[in-house]
């Protein structure tokens, strides 16, 4: 089935047949409801809707997307109807040419480079800030719930609204930030119009959007660490740093690995921030892979479906390699996934 192929291949790529510490329920020895064909039948009936959803609206388009990436399809040669005339498709199969062009072309590599910088800086800064704030909020401090409420706000507001709010603040001539600067006698900063400054600006917005989620997830992790551990460590004379290093960090490991994996994937494909804030500009300075691929399909003329699909498939491949690699590293550290 089309559905199983991606997952299967990832599982295999990640070295599926390595012996594990703890069986994840594939071994024969665990209590379960009746293990008969009947149970399987029910299980399959229950997952059927998802399998259908995934097959029909993810699997099929994915297959078609991969196919398009092997052709030279664009707006002028796909099947379309002009008035009553049906024009048949005339695009041709070109094999791996699009991939060769992308991988050897400077545009893809430059965009990939910036996308990696963007992802790593966003995730690293967000994680550091989230961890710091979570640790502070985990202590007895006056007004804790009030602070928590305030700090979660960026997550509570729909993303596209926040991005427009930032655009309003960044506005070069009339934005709040430059108004303040001119108030203290400094020159206006082209927040979104200078390639380098725009890169910093978009990262800042994405960090602002991402910190609350990170903070709340890590706070949940901190609260699940038993207090006795800290007490015992204090008895043994461990200082604050040692307690953080040997109790907090290991206790947060499972939460952190998950949120870091998720945020990396989300950030890599973070369409709205870039699209709404700069449209990839100035020039193509802030264009990440996803927004550039979108641009190929919907913002240039003639629309280049083949190149767009090629970039999309490449994004998918990159992320899958990353996830497989990540999983392997985790397993080396004894995390069972």
């Amino acid at each position, binding site marked *: 089935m089309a559905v199983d192929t991606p997952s299967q291949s990832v599982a295999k790529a990640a070295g599926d047949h390595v012996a594990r510490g703890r069986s*994840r*329920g594939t071994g024969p020895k665990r209590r379960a409801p009746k293990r008969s064909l009947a149970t399987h039948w029910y299980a399959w009936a229950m997952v059927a809707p998802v399998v259908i959803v*995934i097959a029909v609206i993810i699997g099929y388009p994915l297959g078609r997307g991969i196919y398009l990436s092997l052709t030279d399809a664009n707006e002028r040669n796909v099947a379309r109807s002009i008035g009553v005339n049906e024009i048949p498709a005339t695009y041709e199969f070109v094999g791996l040419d699009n991939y060769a062009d992308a991988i050897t072309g400077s545009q893809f590599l430059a965009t990939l480079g910036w996308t990696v910088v963007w992802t790593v800086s966003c995730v690293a800064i967000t994680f550091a800030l989230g961890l710091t704030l979570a640790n502070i909020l985990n202590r007895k401090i006056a007004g804790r719930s009030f602070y928590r409420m305030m*700090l979660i706000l960026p997550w509570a507001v729909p993303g596209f609204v926040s991005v427009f709010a930032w655009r309003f603040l960044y506005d070069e001539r009339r934005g709040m930030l430059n108004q303040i600067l001119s108030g203290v006698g400094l020159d206006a900063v082209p927040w979104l119009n200078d390639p380098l400054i725009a890169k910093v600006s978009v990262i800042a917005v994405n960090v602002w959007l991402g910190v609350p989620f990170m903070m709340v997830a890590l706070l949940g992790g901190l609260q699940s660490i038993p207090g006795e551990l800290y007490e015992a460590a204090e008895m043994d004379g461990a200082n*604050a740093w040692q307690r953080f290093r040997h109790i907090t960090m290991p206790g947060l490991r499972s939460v952190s690995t998950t949120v870091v994996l998720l945020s990396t994937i989300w950030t890599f494909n973070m*369409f709205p921030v870039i699209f709404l804030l700069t449209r990839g500009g100035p020039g193509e300075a802030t264009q990440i892979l996803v927004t550039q*691929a979108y641009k190929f399909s919907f913002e240039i003329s003639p629309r280049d479906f083949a190149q767009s699909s090629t970039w999309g498939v490449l994004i*998918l491949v990159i992320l899958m390699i990353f996830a497989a690699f990540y999983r392997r590293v985790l397993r080396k550290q004894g995390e069972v996934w």
Partner: protein
Amino acid sequence: MNTPVRGRRSPLSSVALHLTLIVASVIAVFPVLWVLLTSLKPAKYASTTDFFKETTFENYTNLLRDTPFLTWFGNSLLVAALTTVVGVFISATTGYAVSRFRFPGKRGIMWTLLVTQMFPVAVLIVPIYNIMSSMGLLNEPAGLVITYLTIAVPFCAWMMKGFFDGIPREIDESGYVDGLTPFGTFWRLILPLAKPGIAVTAFYSFITAWGEVAYASAFMVGDENLTLAGGLQKFVNQYGAQWGPMTAASVLIAIPAALVFLFAQRHLVTGMSAGAVKG
């Protein structure tokens, strides 16, 4: 850095902690607050730095009277509500099956759910666009709903699994003892217990559909078909920005979402961390 919850702090470190939190809170709240304050100023003063200036609701009245804001709001609401209902139902059954049964293909499904999180909009958007256009679903809410299920369902099923994992298996077993079928057990015993999980999943689906930008921008054209994410872009374009109606619209979109969110978020994280790791 991290002292445990007990123990005394020096006044100095208390001040430092509070200062850190205050600075962080101001940064977190300010952009949102500024939009709210701007929306209450006459449009011609949108770029002044005063907190209050001739407070008025004219931006709101203009927005509701002169722009299709309410139509966009309705479109977004319809799409988000449908996505939520269908998405929750599908994710709940899957989450339960993956949580309770062992069956051939389970690991494949678990992995597929995770891998679909990685699907870039870019790889699916063109084919889905072509499919929708051949089925005549472009510019139709149904087209967006179907598309949003691809985003919401995998993640929600993952979260639901975490919630079900937290419900003791003895409950299922008591159901079997009383002669309920697995589906009956799920429907009558487990679902009622998983209400918080369902609330969270519903909320997540809703927010996903409410705030999605890429598909909504590509699939919906024409003033009467836009969702809020598309409509708001109308106020800010290369010819300049209409900050007055933009800020008013932002407030009207954000307030209901933020209120619901603050109620739901506690469960949201529990669900995420529960469903996340242990397979």
